[in-house]
């Protein structure tokens, strides 16, 4: 593991007051610029001296990036809105409770007061081989140290690995996938691009050095929650080693709308996502298709959960994630109260 040092390498600190000013700095420094949101992921990188940007752009002074506002039947959340503000917001509590649950599961109260929603979804992987500064694929090298015969890979990927087996650590990401959120990106040329949350995250098969679609100069400015899934039946669960202040081993988020015509027992539509099992949060489309029109019961949950883990390829120390993910998907579909755990 890298040794955290007290003194960071020198860099130019910019504290712009507008998105345009921030992008001017980002464009000037290109790949040598570092975007600072809450700083909770950034400061580790900087103090470990693994990342040595020439310029750090602190977004904390840009009002446009903060706040939660209604938009087209849904909500728009500024990327610099803190997780605590997300948790406290009455509309989120009432209509998008899954995001509340996910944000509240992140880290500790102090960290949620400082950490932002944009930062939470854009944070880098916690793979310690990568964060130690070794020349792995993700760092531009030619090996995955976590996928070697004697690697310690208990927290790593069981699905969608392509050379790199790191996982995405975001708690809010699967909830945003379940809500069909839209990510608003201000591109380096000043344009705006709206990306589905599902497409915002990038796996190693597409780009092994990045976790998101953000290119140098791009900024995530807001996250939009459409009204389509507001007030649905939500389920979020995060399994971690300790119940406070820890990253997810596996998490699951689901949104379900029940068929009103059939007495409310059949699933009309559902969105289900998991995280901690791949380098990006995975939407389980096959599971969604399978449960559509079926009753919400143990039988449906079991079939869906078995489908969810198809193709899983555990590493030496993380085979436990396969039954863990299966059980979480089962609980997300059936509900926690009546679901039995199987190994």
């Amino acid at each position, binding site marked *: 593991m890298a040794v955290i040092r007290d003194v960071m390498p020198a860099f130019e600190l910019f504290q712009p007051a507008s998105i345009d000013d921030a992008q001017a700095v980002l464009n000037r420094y290109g790949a040598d610029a570092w975007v600072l949101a809450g700083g909770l992921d950034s400061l580790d990188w900087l103090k470990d001296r693994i990342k040595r940007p020439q310029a750090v752009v602190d977004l904390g002074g840009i009002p446009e990036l903060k706040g939660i506002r209604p938009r087209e039947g849904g909500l728009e959340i500024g990327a610099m809105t803190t997780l605590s503000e997300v948790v406290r917001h009455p509309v989120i509590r009432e209509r998008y409770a899954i995001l509340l649950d996910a944000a509240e599961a992140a880290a500790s109260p102090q960290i949620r007061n400082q950490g932002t929603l944009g930062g939470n979804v854009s944070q880098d992987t916690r793979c310690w081989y990568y964060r130690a500064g070794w*020349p792995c694929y993700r760092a*531009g090298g030619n*090996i995955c140290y976590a996928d070697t015969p004697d690697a310690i890979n208990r927290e790593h990927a069981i699905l969608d690995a392509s050379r790199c087996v790191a996982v995405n650590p975001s708690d809010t990401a699967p909830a945003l996938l379940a809500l069909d959120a839209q990510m608003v990106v201000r591109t380096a040329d000043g344009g705006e691009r709206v990306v589905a949350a599902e497409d915002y995250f990038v796996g190693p098969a597409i780009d092994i050095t990045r976790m998101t679609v953000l290119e140098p100069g791009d900024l995530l400015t807001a996250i939009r929650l459409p009204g389509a899934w507001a007030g649905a039946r939500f389920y979020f669960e995060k399994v971690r080693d300790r119940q406070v202040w820890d990253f997810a081993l596996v998490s699951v988020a689901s949104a379900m709308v029940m068929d009103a015509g059939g007495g409310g027992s059949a699933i009309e539509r559902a969105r289900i996502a998991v995280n901690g099992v791949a380098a990006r949060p995975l939407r389980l489309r096959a599971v969604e298709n399978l449960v559509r029109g079926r009753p919400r019961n143990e039988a449906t949950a079991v079939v869906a959960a078995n489908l969810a883990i198809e193709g899983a390829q555990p590493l030496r120390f993380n085979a436990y994630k396969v039954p863990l993910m299966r059980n979480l998907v089962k609980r997300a579909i059936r509900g926690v109260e009546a679901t039995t755990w199987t190994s």
Partner: protein
Amino acid sequence: MDILTWGRNPWDQAILTHISWDLLWASLFAGVAFLVAHASYMVFSAHRKRHAAETDAMEAARVDLPVRIVRHSLPARVFHWVMAAAMFTLLATAFLPIAGIRFPWVTWHWVAGLVLTGSILFHIVHATVWLDFWSIWVGPRDVPELKAEVLRELGHDVPGPRPGKYPLGNRLYHLAIVATALAVVASGLFMMVRIRTPFVTRNPYLFSDATWGVTYVLHGMAGVGLVGLVIAHVYFAVRPDKWWITKSMILGWITRRQYLEHHDPDRWAAH
């Protein structure tokens, strides 16, 4: 511009990781520069071709030859186009992501690599057993031909020698492509040990970090070299004055007139 990329392994040793991707752009530039330079030379130079009247006379004297001369057998053509498809797939899957066009390329890349490997193995056996193996290679015996070709390119009327089955440029290109393709295939087959495939169990420790670095650099160098070579090959294939050769790779034959105009029948037959 960097040429190589270095890293430090967990034992704090400096290790090669791969080539700098700047070399891709250098190879692209070199390929296009060659294309422009050659095209300009062909437009403005006084390179010497055989006179039509001379070819007429030769054709009249050799009516015993068939109208169509077989240049490439069906297996040879199938190999060529399979190899070409594999090569384009390999280059596209290797370099488009570097150029910013991102897609899941790894599986396509190693599958195309296996197709290329298989086609090369087939070609080696086919050329050794069924074709005139030495007709494609260059050696000291080709120095007079090289001298004559250079003089013709400079506008001199030189009687001979003319090529056998393959023009000298064709043979030199084959030599270059053999060296780069074998380097890329050999290094690529070892690199497959580092990824998940149905064929081999992953073993990232097959080589030391330093040897892996050299393997990746060799693969990268050969890969960017192929970019330039493929540009040159496609350029010659689509040039109007070379189209008869390209056509023969599709149809398998050339006309008697093309045979007599561009080849030395004695040398083609002699090999």
